[in-house]
Structures are given as structure tokens and as C-alpha cells.
């Protein structure tokens, strides 16, 4: 018995070392900008860089748009599939898994060749068009996570009864989805939203290949040209990811539950 606990601690200790040392090393490195003693100069340098502010704002805006589009696309689909079109479910699930099967670089390659400036839908023909394409690309990347979050949320509420009650009260279908279902699955939707944000904010491949001034390509550019700022940016990115994930954890405590009908 004692021995098994010893091994457990040993494995845990080695694992913890592997995961914590890079964080400590990166933090230490980020403090070394001024010779001789530790300082937060590299952070000051990052935050005062107008490029940092521009690219971060750009990525945050695209991230928010992706979340909104994602919710608009996913919530009605999950609602109707749950309510009346159960036969569609395996197909919808398969489609939501595709972004895990097809790497992002393949998708963007397809977009660039399919939606070039001489095609029927020339997304890449203008800056705004490319921004829209980037947003849709991010919705695609986050689709597996957004779908699963919304689906899990709808499983915990009684969609049938809520819908019937709202119909009897005279609500239209958009009203039912927007004012009855959505508030009830808000926690799940927000989890999906934070996950989307975490995935999108530092995304490099698609933004770089679509030539958009996003945070990911900025990070890469700083990495190739500066010494201490990349370490500071890595710490900042880790904190953002950590923030998004702890929001999800925090939210899951507030999830409302109307027990689902079992018939």
C-alpha cells in the first residue's frame, strides 16, 4: 500500500517538474532584459508596443465575432436536432468532428484556392472579405468545442417541455430559442465561448496564411526578432489561456439544471 503511494508521488513529481520548469524558466527569462538584476522591462516593452495593442485588439475582435457567429450557427442546429430531427444527429456530430480530422493548414489552403479573388465568392479579394473568411475559419476551428458545449448544455435542460410551455404561451420559434433556450444554456454557451477565445487569440497558421494582422503572426514575428519579449509574451499568453479555462471551471458551478425528461 505504502509503496504504491510512493510511486504515485514519484510519477506526479516528475510530471509536475516537466510542466512547471518551462513556466518558471520562461518567467525567469522574461525578467532578464536589464543586465545584472531582474526587472519587468520586457513586459513594459511589450505593452508599450503599438503593434501589440493593434494585433491583440484585432484578434480579440475577430475572436468575439467568431463566438457570435458560432452561437448563431450551432445553437439553432442543436435545438432542432434535439427537438425534432434526431435522425440528423449522427451526421451533425460527424460534421462537427471534421475540424479535428482535417488540420487547419489544409482548411486554409482550401479556402485560399476556392475563394480567391477570381472565384464566385471572392473572400480573399478584399481586406474586409478576408476578415470575414478568417472569422468563419475560426468558427470552423472552434466548431467541435462549441457544438459539444452547447449539446451538453441542452442535455441538462428539458427542451421538450420548455418548448411546449413557450408555445402554449404563444411564443414564436425565434423567441423560444432566443429568450427561453439560450438563457437556460447560457453557462454552456459561455464555456464554448471562452474555449473559442482561447483557441483563436494566438492562432498563427490561418491568420498568417490569410495575411491578416493578427496576434499569432505578431507573436511569431517578435520571436524571430527579439530576445526577451517572446518570453514575456509566452507568459502573457499562458495567463490568457489560464484565465479562459478558469472562467469555464467557475461557470460550470453555476450551471442551471432542470431535470431532463426521461421518456
Amino acid at each position, binding site marked *: 500500500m505504502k509503496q*504504491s503511494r510512493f510511486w504515485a508521488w514519484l510519477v*506526479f513529481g516528475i510530471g509536475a517538474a516537466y510542466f512547471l520548469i518551462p513556466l518558471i524558466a520562461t518567467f525567469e527569462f522574461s525578467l532578464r532584459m536589464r543586465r545584472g538584476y531582474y526587472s519587468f522591462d520586457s513586459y513594459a516593452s511589450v505593452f508599450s508596443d503599438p503593434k501589440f495593442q493593434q494585433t491583440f485588439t484585432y484578434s480579440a475582435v475577430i475572436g468575439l465575432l467568431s463566438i457570435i457567429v458560432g452561437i448563431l450557427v450551432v445553437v439553432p*442546429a442543436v435545438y432542432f436536432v434535439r427537438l425534432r430531427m434526431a435522425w440528423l444527429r449522427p451526421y451533425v456530430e460527424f460534421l462537427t468532428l471534421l475540424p479535428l480530422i482535417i488540420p487547419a493548414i489544409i482548411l486554409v489552403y482550401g479556402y485560399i484556392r476556392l475563394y480567391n479573388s477570381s472565384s464566385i465568392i471572392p473572400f480573399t479579394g478584399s481586406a474586409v472579405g478576408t476578415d470575414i473568411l478568417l472569422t468563419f475559419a475560426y468558427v470552423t476551428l472552434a466548431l467541435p468545442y462549441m457544438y459539444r458545449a452547447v449539446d451538453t448544455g441542452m442535455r441538462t435542460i428539458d427542451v421538450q417541455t420548455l418548448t*411546449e410551455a413557450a408555445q402554449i404561451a404563444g411564443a414564436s420559434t425565434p423567441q423560444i430559442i432566443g429568450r427561453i433556450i439560450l438563457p437556460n444554456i447560457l453557462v454552456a454557451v459561455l464555456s464554448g465561448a471562452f474555449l473559442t477565445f482561447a483557441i483563436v487569440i494566438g492562432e498563427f497558421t490561418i491568420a498568417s496564411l490569410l495575411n491578416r494582422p493578427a496576434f499569432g503572426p505578431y507573436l*511569431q514575428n517578435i520571436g524571430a526578432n527579439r530576445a526577451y519579449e*517572446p518570453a514575456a509574451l509566452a507568459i502573457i499568453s499562458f495567463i490568457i489561456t489560464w484565465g479562459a479555462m478558469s472562467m469555464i471551471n467557475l461557470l460550470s458551478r453555476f450551471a442551471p439544471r432542470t431535470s431532463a425528461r426521461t421518456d
Partner: protein
Amino acid sequence: MTTLDTGTTAPGKKRALSFEWLGVAPFIVFAIMFLILPTLYLVGAAFVDEQGGFTLANFAGLGTPQIVAAYWISIRISGASAILGALIGLAIALALIRGKLPSGLRAAVMTFSGVASNFAGVPLAFAFISTLGRLGLATVILKFVFGIDIYKAGFNLLSFWGLTITYLYFQIPLMILIIAPAIDGLKKEWSEAASTLGATPWQFWRYVGLPILWPSFLGTLSLLFANAFGAIATAYALTGSSLNIVPILLYAQIRGDALQNPGLGAALAVGMILITGFANVIYLVISSRAERWLK
């Protein structure tokens, strides 16, 4: 309840039906435009030569030494990081769940795994440059405190092992997140029953525990493989374009037609889809089989 049901839906049936389709339509249109068409377009383009005629030459072109080498090193890195990630992740998850560690630790590790599995891409590369780069903290400490110069010993962060160690940072947490529910599915009664019948802990794991975990393990292994195979941002930020792996080769192709043949580029992409697709199909098949133990 059922009478009420028919009562409310029958008069408005037609309207409700069209609403259903209106609700699902955005999703379907979206999936066709941004998932299916782009992929099919690339598959089609892989069979077209530069004059626009049908050809298989693009796939024959994948046999050139540079491309074969790229696929081979990609497969090796993905394979090594998937196998090591799966084994280490399994060991950590087992230690946490079955090793009688304090229960608060488990929640902390799970939260951290959620963060670390999403902490990929460019910042991850920065973190490992600060750790195991030539001036990284771990490199320096190993050199001056322990007298081990890893770079003299042949280690290089911009190499097969360097990239594999870096990829493990998101592979291990992903394994922990996926395998933990499977380990929870190992019921306490099973190990109690085994020990009542006189089995040693080793025998329990050899004949009961690991065989039940095996499908989940294999399935997650293939998911990790696909995960690493398609990853590019970390490798690109770490090595620039100096490491010849498939995603970086494809990146160069998209950027500036590095292979000087769009059809060959498409064939390269189709090769990637086939490999990650195959790995994921294995995952889906195995995980649906493994689920029956988790009820």
C-alpha cells in the same frame, strides 16, 4: 401529455417543419462551405495537371526524396510524441486517481491539463526556447550546476527530440483529460473482487485493469498522433523553415508555391488528410467500442 402534443403541433405542422429546416440550414450551409467544399476542392486539384487535364502524376510526385523525408520525419515526431504522451499521461492519470494522492490534487491537475492542452502554438515554442534553448534556464543549470552540457552531448531543440519534447507539453495533458474518465470507469469492486480471489495488484492490472483501459489507450494514441501531425505553429516558431516536416513544407507551398506545382501541393495536402483521417477513424471506432465499459 401525448394528446397535448398532437393538439399543439398538428395545425401548425407545415410552418414548424420549415422552421426546423431554417434552423438547421445555417449549420449545414456553413459545414458545406467551410469544411466539405474546400477539402473536396483540394482532393480534386490533386488529380489535375498544370494544363487542366486529369493526372496521377501529382501523387507520383509525392515520391520525391524531399517529400518522402518530410512525411517520414513528421510521422516519427507525431508517433514518438503520441506514444510517449500516451504512456506518461496514463502514468500520471493512474497515479492521481488510483495512487491515493490527495483529492484536491486531481482537480488542480485537471484544470492545469485543460490549460496546457490549449497552450500550443507560438508561445509554447517561446517557453521551450527559454527552457531548453542554448541560453535556456534548464540548459544553463544543467551545465553549471550538474556539469552536463546537453548541447555538447548532441541535443538540439531544433531537432527530432527537441520538437518531440516540446509537443509532449500539449500531448500529455490531452491524454490525461481523455483517459481519466476511462480510469474512473474501473470500478473499485473489480480490484476488490480480484484481491479477494487472491490476485496480486500486478495480476489485477495485467489481467483486468490494463485490458479494459487498452481500447481507450489505443484510441487516444491515434488522436494524439493526428493532433501532432497537423500541428505547425509550434514547429514553425521553433525552427523557422529549417525542419523539413510536412506541415511546414505545405506552409511554404501555400506561401510561395515552393514546389512550383499547385497540383503537387494539393496532393501533399491530400496525403496529410489521409494520414490524420486514418488516425481519427481508428480513434472513433475504438472509442465507441471502449465506451461500453464506462457505463
